[in-house]
């Protein structure tokens, strides 16, 4: 019910503006936003520059639009032609920076996970983009690339100070309705703040199109030794683990109920409802047997992002679970430190595309690579149905092998002050203010 309520609000709030609004908004005003960490840089990127391609809906059909490029298929899906709508060198540099072998952008990580290299070069009046293997999902991939150029050619806002964005009158896209966006640290001052715990009483909440996924990733020795006892024929088994872990309760406790226990990797929004591997629990599941004394026979390295309160809550429960099996936890500060251990991972799929998202997770954890090259290429096929099929195959392989144990989905949501309309949430999970406006007096 709460989810339904949330979706209703999101639909109402995220509807873009257009000419047929019977009450057109009045431009002007300032909005104060509170964001943290990587979300802050994603937010700035989304407002001061432009993606090379954007998803759009035209007449009910999902399609692609761009103020920057037009993408054409070459002879086959290894070669694409990019026609720039502005200076080609800007676009070329942007593609090279995004897809280059040393790039940290997610499209580059996706290509690396599939062992594909990309080359972009000027070719006549266009840019030739060549992949070492077929990439049918080039549009999806380039939607993760951003224009690297001067502010004058950028997005609807420009950086006017370390914490201030101003409307960019020389932008390539229609100017925003707001005059300024101020980043603030104090939640009390913010008109938009990251949702934590209980939603505000007045229901002013917006959520992303799909949730984050909380996963437990087992690697190296931890997987080999089955420290959780969840292997296919092991005791107590995965079903008992799920019951004793009680992820649904943890979502209630640590996330204010904004999410739910989940046994799938692909969240709603990325994949249609689909069957998951069946697991059976014993008729009676005992509560965790815990002792006041630490009598651990061994310990296992565990990583969790210490800044993520919800993930830390799950990690606490994990340590209790391991403790009941007389296994201690040695917390590590870096994800790389848990190569032979467990990671509690909050995963935000970078794209609505299931194939690309699975490759992105593989790029983060090379141990998750599955199948032969054919399956990986299928994740980048030109058919979404084929990509979804491949993604489901990968998901099943991860769960069957217990390399990935899905725990929960966590809604990505923001509190929005009353009167502020037109705010949406990007696929990256940050608020978008291009169409935002004050419904009453600014």
């Amino acid at each position, binding site marked *: 019910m709460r989810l339904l309520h949330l979706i209703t609000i999101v639909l109402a709030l995220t509807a873009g*503006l257009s000419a047929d609004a*019977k*009450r057109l908004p*009045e431009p002007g005003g300032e909005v104060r936003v509170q964001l943290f960490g990587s979300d802050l840089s994603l937010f700035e990127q989304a407002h001061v520059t432009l993606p090379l391609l954007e998803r759009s809906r035209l*007449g009910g059909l999902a399609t692609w639009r761009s103020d920057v490029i037009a993408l054409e298929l070459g002879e086959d899906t290894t070669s694409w032609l990019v026609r720039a709508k502005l200076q080609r060198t800007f676009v070329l540099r942007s593609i090279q920076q995004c897809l280059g072998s040393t790039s940290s952008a997610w499209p580059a990580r996706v290509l690396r996970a599939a062992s594909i290299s990309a080359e972009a070069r000027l070719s006549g009046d266009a840019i030739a983009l060549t992949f070492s293997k077929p990439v049918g999902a080039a549009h999806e991939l380039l939607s993760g690339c951003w224009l690297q150029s001067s502010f004058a050619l950028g997005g609807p806002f420009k950086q006017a100070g370390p914490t201030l964005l101003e409307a960019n009158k020389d932008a390539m896209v*229609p*100017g925003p309705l707001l005059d300024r966006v101020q980043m603030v640290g104090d939640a009390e001052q913010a008109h938009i703040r990251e949702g934590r715990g209980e939603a505000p009483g007045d229901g002013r909440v917006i959520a992303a199109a799909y949730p984050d996924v909380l996963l437990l990733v087992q690697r190296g020795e931890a997987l080999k030794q089955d420290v959780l006892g969840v292997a296919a024929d092991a005791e107590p088994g995965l079903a008992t683990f799920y019951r004793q872990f009680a992820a649904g309760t943890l979502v209630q406790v640590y996330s204010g109920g904004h999410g739910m226990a989940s046994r799938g990797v692909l969240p709603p929004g990325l994949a249609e409802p689909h069957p998951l591997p069946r697991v059976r629990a014993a008729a009676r599941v005992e509560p965790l047997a815990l002792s006041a004394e630490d009598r651990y026979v061994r310990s296992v390295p565990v990583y969790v992002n210490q800044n993520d309160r919800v993930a830390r809550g799950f990690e606490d429960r994990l340590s209790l679970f391991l403790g009941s099996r007389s296994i201690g936890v040695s917390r590590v500060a870096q994800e790389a430190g848990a190569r032979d251990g467990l990671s509690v991972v909050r995963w935000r799929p970078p794209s609505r595309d299931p194939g690309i998202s699975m490759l992105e997770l593989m790029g983060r954890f090379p141990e998750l690579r599955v199948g032969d090259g054919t399956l990986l290429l299928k994740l980048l096929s030109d058919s979404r149905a084929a990509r979804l099929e491949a993604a489901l195959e990968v998901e099943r392989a991860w769960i069957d092998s217990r390399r990935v144990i899905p725990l929960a989905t966590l809604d990505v949501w923001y509190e929005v002050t009353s009167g502020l309309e037109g705010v949406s949430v990007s696929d990256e999970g940050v608020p978008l203010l291009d169409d935002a406006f004050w419904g009453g007096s600014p």
Partner: protein
Amino acid sequence: MTRRIPIKSSATIHLWCCVLGFAIGLGTAQTAFGYEDSTGTLVESVARAVIERARAQEIQTLSTVDIETRGAFDQGRFQTFFTRRLEEQLGFAGLVAPERGRVGQANLRIVVSVKSQRVWAVGFLEPTSGRAPIPLAISRVLDDELAYALGLRRTQGANRRWSIERMGVVRGQVLDICFVPIEGQGDETLLAVLTTDAVDFYRQPGLDDSLQQLSFRHELGVTRWPRIVAGWMGAYAPGKIWLATTAADEDPYVVDIESRERTRAPFVGVPVRQQDELGSGDVFFADRTPSSASLRGKLRLVGGQPVTGAPVMKSFRDAVFMARDNLWATVDADGRLAVSAGQGDSWDLGGERVGDRLVLTDLDDDEIFELVTTRASYQGEPDELMIRRVDVLSKRLISSFRRSTDGAIAALAVGRFHSEDGPAVWFVEQDSVGLATVWRVVMR
């Protein structure tokens, strides 16, 4: 008011008299004259009562027929739809066709009035012989059709019947619509539809026919719209549309439908249409606010001179003037609806917010204006058309008609295609796939 019908003679009356007698004998008088509407039924009932009583008293002809109305009848319509029809039917029966020089045997006196939502025709057949007058009393329910036909100005409590009719589909993202009279084309009027691409023109061949698109269209040629996409049109002269949009670097201009030429507007002004109840009227002009759907500045006439008595408005979306009551209705930039007498004396409307556009008309012909608005909602939310009576005495807007729509109401206008059409509100409901439905609201 009394109208005395001069008694006429006709060579065809005797033949029709036989037909009528046969028809009455078969009990089919109600359709014998071909009047199957409410007014026809009333007239036939009165005629039948008179004829039956006259026959019973062996009265062959009438000397005079006096018909009097009590109440707010439109005398022109009453004469057309009641008096002439009654005269015709009595003529068919031979009662008003005395032979030349022959004196009639009775006088007919009828008073038509309205009471308790019924139309009453009460009167006497007064024999000239001095015998006692013969009474007659006929009544019919006052429905919308009868009220319209008799030109009755109905009171608030009357049983109104609004009719909302689908008139056609137009393509594109609609910004505004307006009616444009065409010079030298009789009374032909076109509906101009402004979209983000062009202005398209539509005609309506008959009162209830669907709209037909003309082959001529005026392309806007706008390549770059700001985030606020809005447009305004006003026909300030026959065949000439003054057009303004929020498109960057686009000054207002005039489109001449006949020459198909585009010329620069005499000054930079946004048309603010002022319709009367039949859809014609002045066009006022206001200043634009860059990248906004709001208007500002003093309202001006087409010659550029200020509109006398217009309120000073800081920033507004639309304004209409009710000349008879010297009232202005405005929507400000925040969507607040206000009604005021020029510079002051604002009505307390509770700060209600409405959509950007207003239109004003007298749809039910009761000499009380109706203010038509939409809901102050944004895209993705259901919209609503609201018609409210402007009650000058109580200084209130009284809800008269509401209709929810699935899509956004993108444009509103008052007008009519032909001079014989009644007043109507036209609006465009925009859906999410680039189709827009044109609706008409009338009172029937």
